[in-house]
């Protein structure tokens, strides 16, 4: 089954004439990991926001796990889409400790399962000693890891990541990259990942798509495993 399928998606911000995304179609099978590459400002974050329900498309439709979440007549609110997201600027809640941040997304889990899950996630991102800290007491890279853990914790059907590694040093990046791929694969989680780093794509992703500049039609195959698509 396709976890996500997008048909002829078009979107523009209010009061702007040129669409950021135009007539975009794309689909992903379960367990696939897809990288999204493209220049700054080309609409990568916007695509993730559309999939997650933070923006509403002008035209076209989005289906998640077979059911339409955005289309001509439907719009499912973000909280009901079962999509996880790692934000470009982390968005860790500043008034909550690391642990509370992770617990936040686990309200649908049984009470006794919550703490073990938090521990599991902290181990994954190698942050076990930091659960009592507050976000402002963490470095940029540490915040990023917590953001990653927070998004993974509820086990979403679909995980969206907006440059999840941009603030990590090469060492950490390497180890998290490998582990992330393993976790995603083990959980059979489907994942879209925006990145500037072709190494990320090679290490983690099964295939990738490239976003081009306005007006240019371009498409590029970046790795051997699959074909790419699109763009504009």
């Amino acid at each position: 089954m396709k976890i996500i399928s997008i048909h002829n998606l078009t979107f523009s911000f209010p009061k702007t004439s040129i669409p950021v995304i135009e007539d975009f179609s794309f689909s992903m099978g379960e367990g696939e990991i897809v990288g999204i590459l493209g220049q700054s400002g080309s609409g990568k974050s916007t695509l993730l926001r559309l999939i997650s329900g933070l923006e509403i498309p002008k035209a076209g439709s989005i289906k998640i796990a077979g059911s339409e979440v955005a289309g001509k007549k439907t719009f499912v609110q973000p909280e009901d889409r079962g999509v996880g997201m790692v934000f470009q600027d982390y968005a860790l809640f500043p008034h909550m400790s690391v642990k509370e941040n992770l617990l936040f997304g686990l309200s649908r889990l049984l009470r006794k399962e919550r703490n073990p899950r938090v521990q599991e996630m902290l181990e994954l991102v190698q942050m076990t000693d930091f659960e009592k800290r507050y976000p402002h007491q963490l470095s940029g890279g540490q915040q990023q890891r917590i953001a990653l853990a927070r998004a993974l914790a509820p086990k979403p059907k679909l995980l969206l990541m907006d440059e999840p590694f941009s603030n990590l040093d090469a060492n950490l990046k390497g180890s998290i990259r490998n582990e992330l791929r393993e976790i995603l694969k083990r959980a059979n989680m489907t994942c879209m990942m925006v990145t500037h780093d072709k190494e990320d794509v090679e290490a983690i992703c099964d295939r990738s798509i490239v976003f081009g500049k306005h007006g240019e039609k371009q498409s590029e195959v970046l790795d051997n495993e699959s074909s790419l698509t699109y763009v504009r």
Partner: protein
Amino acid sequence: MNTESVKQFFRKDFNGWWLVSLMGAAMILLPILFIFFSIFQEPNENWFQIREYLLKNYAANTIILVVLTGVLTAASGVSLAWLIAAYDFPMRRFFSWGLILPLAIPPYIAAYTYRTMLSYTGVVQVTLRNQFDYLINPEWLSISSLRGAVFIFTLFLFPYVYIICRAFLENQSSSFLENARLLGRKPFSIFVRIILPLSRPAIVAGAVLVIYEVLSDYGVTSYFGIHTITTAIFQTWFGMYDADSAMRLAAWLMVIIVGLFFIEKLLRQGRRYNISSKARPLVRQKLKGFPAAAAVIYCSVIFLLGFFIPVVQLLAWSRLTFTKVWNDTFFTLLNQTVFVGMLSTALILLFAVIIANVTRSHSSGAYILSKLATTGYSIPGAIIAIGVLALFIELDSLLAPFYSYMGWGKAPLILSLSLAMLVIGYTIRFMATGFNAVEIGFEKIGTKYTEASRMLGFGVTKTFFKIDLPLIKGALFSGFILTFVEIIKELPLALLLRPFNFDTLATKTYQYAKDEMIFEASIPSLMIIIISVLSVAVFQMIDKKVKK
């Protein structure tokens, strides 16, 4: 906006929060529309009288007051802001907040204080007579005139311009100034050629606040016997019992305000400066010798006249009447004031939070909603009061069958005699104060936390209580204080809408002053001033914390 985007809005953004916001907006708009539509009704005979003999004169007085006060507050506000922002001189730090304090004294209190001080038995003439054996021409000291009102308004409202200009100059002007200095310009020419044009938007913003206050004023003008449109509204309603004409006058005053609104737009736009966000703070120049002395004297005179002297005078009077006024009746008064103030502030913040939470998404319609929520501030208290009164009387007559069914008598006035009227009036008038504070809070946190929470499975409402509310606590607190103080100071609205036998500090003060019981008025006046000063102090503290 086309039908497609309207549909999109309903699918994505419309929810209970929007619904409540629209109800709030309707509550604000209804009384105002009520007044507006009175223009289209058939006028009565009295109105022709008023229009023929009085309106021109009233309008002229109003406009003269507004123009003179506007110009003078702009001049004093920006010059003081410039001194404090750009120069260092003895006592500068003290003046930098001391010059805000005149705002803590409502102009009507200043008006009766100054008039009494300058009267034949007042401290000025008595001192001159007894100590210096000098008989001053009382004409010179007569303050009950247009001139006197301009003096009072300028002295006690200029801080609006001062605060906005100072913040602007401190943060935004350094690069322009440094360039001008490097080009060898003299300070005065820098002020005229660079500072004035540069800070025009800030000056206009401050002056417009001042003008709204002047248009709204009833206390100073009625006490000094100056006829303005606002005093005329009171007179036609209470003197002639002619509600229709009062509403018509109110509608005309609204026309002036709408005109003013466009003038403001015109003055503010035009030149848009590219002001960098990474502006460095201004480095202050040290003043020495004569210029330093002149700066100190200028600031001192304004501070003494605008705060110190009236407060000392009020303190002296309060000693004379302390035992007479400071009793249970006064505590009841205090209780009532605080109660109605808190109740209204809470209602305002409730709506402010709901509306601001809706408008911060910047979805279609959000802009209009935020404009609607804040219209009350630019509309004088008297107009709002008339609108609310008329609306409530209308409601009572609509509900009359229900009342008689309940056995409450035939066509009683229930709503229009209740405290609800005053609370609604305050809410409409000061929604903007609360809303702006809350909006700033939301702007500071942005939307990312809210979005993150929704991605973790929480809806708008749960997200609000778990994420947004804890993060805007500080903004809510400052919004609460600001709004509360505005309510405590408001006079015309309270005079018109209070239930029978219900007094607030403001109305009691005004009543005492009008009955020439000046000494008795001093204690409630001081109470209002203390509450206002405390709020200024709280803000200084918050400001310092933020800067650290």
